[in-house]
Every structure is written in structure tokens, then in C-alpha cells.
């Protein structure tokens, strides 16, 4: 997002505030800016151009019932094939709902015959596994969602 668009958005937020609106959407050519605020919550900005990450093409995790600011997404560090277990005849490393410890293997991503074990970075609970077994994943693709536990 460039500074011009940032300014546009700020302007629109101001108008939103002044007029006590719930939503403003502006589109001009490729640039679309939508600003929405539900009564009593903080302002929520979506800008569909100039996105900073390749991950927006993935479906968002279905974790709306959790406070998303506390959830951790585990992303693939490599391009490869996602496996939930070390071999087909073995149980998966983890299931949704399982408690996991920091350093515990969650899954593997196989790339060029090399098995990359993906470990939990925190103690927590596996809220969601986002990828089907034996499916290709790209760099940075979210694999699963962990709810950190104290």
C-alpha cells in the first residue's frame, strides 16, 4: 500500500467518523477501498490492491469463534507436499483438538525427497488443520492453527 492510498483511507475513515457511517466503498480503475465499521467496534480497513502477501488467496481459517488475535498460524517454510503422518500406515502426528508442546512435530512437508518436519513453536492446542493430507503447499501457506496455552 502506498502513502497516497494510506492517505485516502485515512480521509475516508475521517468521513466515516464525521458522518457516523458504517461503510464507505470507493473504486477507481484497479483501486478499490472499502471501509466498514460495525456499531461500537473499531474501524476495519480492506484494500484490494497492492497487497503485501501471497497468502490472501488461501481461504481464511474457520476460526471465527476464537479470539483471532491469540491464534498462531503455522505456515509452510518450503514448497512441498504436506503429510500429516511420517508414512501412510501410521497415525497422524496430531489431530484437531490435540494439545501440543513446543518443539513437537505437527506435520511434514516433503520437498525433493527431503522430509521437513514442522514443529510447534509454542505449547498450545491444535485448533484447525488447514490442508488435506498429501496435497502440495506453497511457500508461506498456512498449514494449521494453534491456540497458545499458558
Amino acid at each position, binding site marked *: 500500500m502506498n502513502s497516497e492510498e494510506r492517505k485516502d483511507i485515512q480521509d475516508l475513515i475521517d468521513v466515516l467518523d464525521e458522518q457516523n457511517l458504517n461503510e464507505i466503498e470507493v473504486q477507481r480503475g484497479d483501486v478499490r477501498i472499502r471501509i466498514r465499521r460495525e456499531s461500537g467496534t473499531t474501524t476495519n480497513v480492506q484494500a484490494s490492491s497492492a497487497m503485501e502477501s*501471497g497468502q490472501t488467496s488461501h481461504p481464511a481459517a474457520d476460526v471465527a469463534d476464537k479470539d483471532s488475535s491469540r491464534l498462531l498460524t503455522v505456515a509452510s517454510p*518450503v514448497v512441498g507436499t504436506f503429510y500429516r503422518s511420517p508414512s501412510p500406515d501410521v497415525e497422524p502426528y496430531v489431530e484437531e483438538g490435540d494439545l501440543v508442546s513446543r518443539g513437537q512435530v505437527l506435520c511434514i512437508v516433503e520437498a525433493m525427497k527431503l522430509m521437513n518436519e514442522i514443529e510447534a513453536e509454542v505449547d498450545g492446542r491444535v485448533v484447525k488443520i488447514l490442508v488435506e493430507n498429501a496435497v502440495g503447499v*506453497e511457500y508461506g501457506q498456512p498449514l494449521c492453527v494453534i491456540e497458545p496455552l499458558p
Partner: protein
Amino acid sequence: MFKKILIANRGEIALRIIRACREMGIKTVAVFSEVDAQALFARQADERMCIGPADSALSYLNIPNVLSAAEITGADAIHPGYGFLAENAHFAEICESVGMTFIGPTSEHVALLGDKVKARATMLQHGIPVMPGSDGELQNLDHAVRVASELGYPVMVKASAGGGGRGLRVVSREAELGKAILSAQVEARTGFAHDGVYLEKFFPEPRHVEIQVLADEHGHAVHLGERDCSIQRRYQKLVEESPSPVVDDALRKEMGKVALQVVKAVNYRNAGTVEFLLDQNRKFYVMEVNTRIQVEHPVTEMVTGIDLIKEQIRVASGIPLGFRQKDIQWQGHSIECRINAECPETFVPSPGVVSRFRVPGGAGIRVDTALEATDQVHPHYDSLIAKLIAHGQDRADALARAQRALDEFAVEGIKTTIPLQRLILRDPDFQKGGVSTNFLDRLLAGRML
């Protein structure tokens, strides 16, 4: 023929290859870094995969991720474009070992021709005119002094593993030779992890003329004539044209013959470029062989009507070349201007958001770009954002069209080399034709943009 090709590149050349594949009915896979997620080249492919962060060492040069993406998507070949992995023998070798077709020559060709000293030795064996210089790396200062006096000063010290002008020194007198060798070695060690250097004769007004070749695995090879790439700044080409204003039919035939000798000497295949130094007496010497498609390949396409990317793909899939040397005909004149996102005065890269991008069109104009208005030019990559290629009945016609198109080309939000290209194209010496590689430095020294 391949069913699906992965393009291990970005920007205009990635889109160029995707277009060729679409026209051939071949599916494409684009791989991209995180900042390129919304780039036109990625959106135009049939499939796409993110292979790493913005830093190209972790994405476009990440061999495991590139190959893994090819494997996952079921691609049966990889086109490397130019730059990145295009002349990486190791990458070509891994492709070969996992049964993935590398669209280019074999890894042995890439390795041999990428090593200047070995390449030179091979060409000498086959009686090919190479740059006058030391046969192999310099052993010691005595060796250097002896070779230099045979060549006659001035001479050039060059790094074996070098390129783009790095690790290069011009020496006018014997007294300066030792110091020049030492500093070139330091630069070479830092830049290329190999400090071998060699000597070459220095030419005061050289012209850079290169011959495009195409070879299949069935022993057929053709040359597609020359490109004159003498308009350079620090070994970076800015304007290329075909035919060269200083190459006539007889010289083209001679140079083409030598280029095909090189092909035969190493049993080369796929597209390649034999780069020559052409001196003021019409003598020419092979400088090096590029084992990839060149940035400037479109000027050859415009005058021959042959689609070089499609030929690369056909040849890589084992199809014999569909034409012989006698079928190659050259029509008219073509010129390419490289539009870089750079300050036209300081050459400092100018990344940023492109607020306006109107490309020229009409008769005789081709634009190769993967940029659109509102796109961002990233600081992580090469600053080439577009290639403007003009074709006309003759050189004057092609220049007039290129000038007209440069005037129509409207880019806002970033600085580009367009004003410099305008300056070059209206320069009387350039218009007369046949300038040397010193032209641009002289123009820049005296210019008023």
C-alpha cells in the same frame, strides 16, 4: 511436446514465455515471491505457486522450492528465462538428474561455456577466432608480463568467473600490470569466490555484435543473424538492433559461419548467443557464449519472423528444427530500447508505485512488459520494466518508429530511462550508425537531458 511448463522467472520474460506457451497450447505454472503475488505474470499463468519471500536468494534462486513446485504441479519442463537460474549449471544438472527437462542446453554446455578460460581453450582447439590473450589463467607476474608484451599494450585483466564488468582492469603500461592483477583478484575473490584472472588485448573502439544460434539434438543448427549491442553503460546494454549498421551480407555470413563452428565444437543445442568483439577493421573475435535466451532476443524475432521462445521449447522437447539456414530471411530493421526503472541521469534504481503506464502501440511497435498502472516496482529485482521494440522497412524507418513510440510512452510515479533513450535515438552519431561501446559514456559526459 510438453503438457505443462514451469517458468522459473518473473516480470516481462516470464510473461513472454507464458504467452508463447499459451499460443502453443501448453499449460503454464508461474512461481513467484511474496511481493509478486499480484503481478501480471503470475496472474496470467494457468497455475501459480509462491516460492519464497522477496529476497531472490530465497525465492527465484531457491532451487529446492522451484523444483518442488514443478514436481507438485506436474510440470514436465522448466523454462529459466534469463538471469536467476538460467546459466546455473548446478540447477540444470539437478533438473537432468530428476528427469525434469531444462529448456536450454545441457548442464555440461552451461558449465563449459560459463567458464571463460575453459571455453576459450575449447574454441582455440577448434580454430575459432577468440579474443587475443593469455591461454588460460595467469600463473604469475612473469607470465603476465610476457603475454602482455606479446599482445601489445593496452591490455585487459579479466576475472575467469567474472561478468558485467566486475573484476576487470585496463592496463596501459607494464609498470601498472602487477597492481591491476592484484586488485582484480581481490574483486574476483569477493564477487565470484574464485580469484583466477587472465589477460586480453584491449581494443579502443570495440563494437559488441552477437550472433543468435538455434540448434536441435539431431545435429541441425542455424544462425539468425546478428544483433548490435554496442550501446552499453558499464556493460549493461540499453539499445540493441538487428541488423547491425556495420555488418553487411558478407560479414554476416562469415560471423554466422564462426558462430555455427562454436555450436559444432561443443555439440551445442537449444538457443544460444555467440558474442563477438568487432574491431574497426572488421575483424571479429568470440568474447563469450551465452547459453540462455537474451533480453534482446525480440529484435531477431522481428527481422526473421521466428519466435525464439517457441523454438527453444520445440527443440527442448526433441522436435527437429523446422527450417534450414537457407530458409532464414531477414526483413527490414528492428531496434529495442530497454526501459529501466532508474533515474536517467544517475542510474540509481527508482522503485515505487507506477501511477500511470500508457504503452505505445500502432504499426511496427511491440512492447514486452509485465507492468500495469498501479503496480509496484520492487527494489529487490532487476530494474528492467519494459522493452520497446520497433520494426521498420529500414534503419531510418525503425528509428523513426522507436522515437515516435518513446514520445508516446507515458510512465508516472517512478523514473525511467525513457528520456535517455530519446537522447540516444536522436544523437547524430548514433543515427549515422556504427558507434562503439564507448558511445554512451561519451554521450553521458556531454549531455543535457
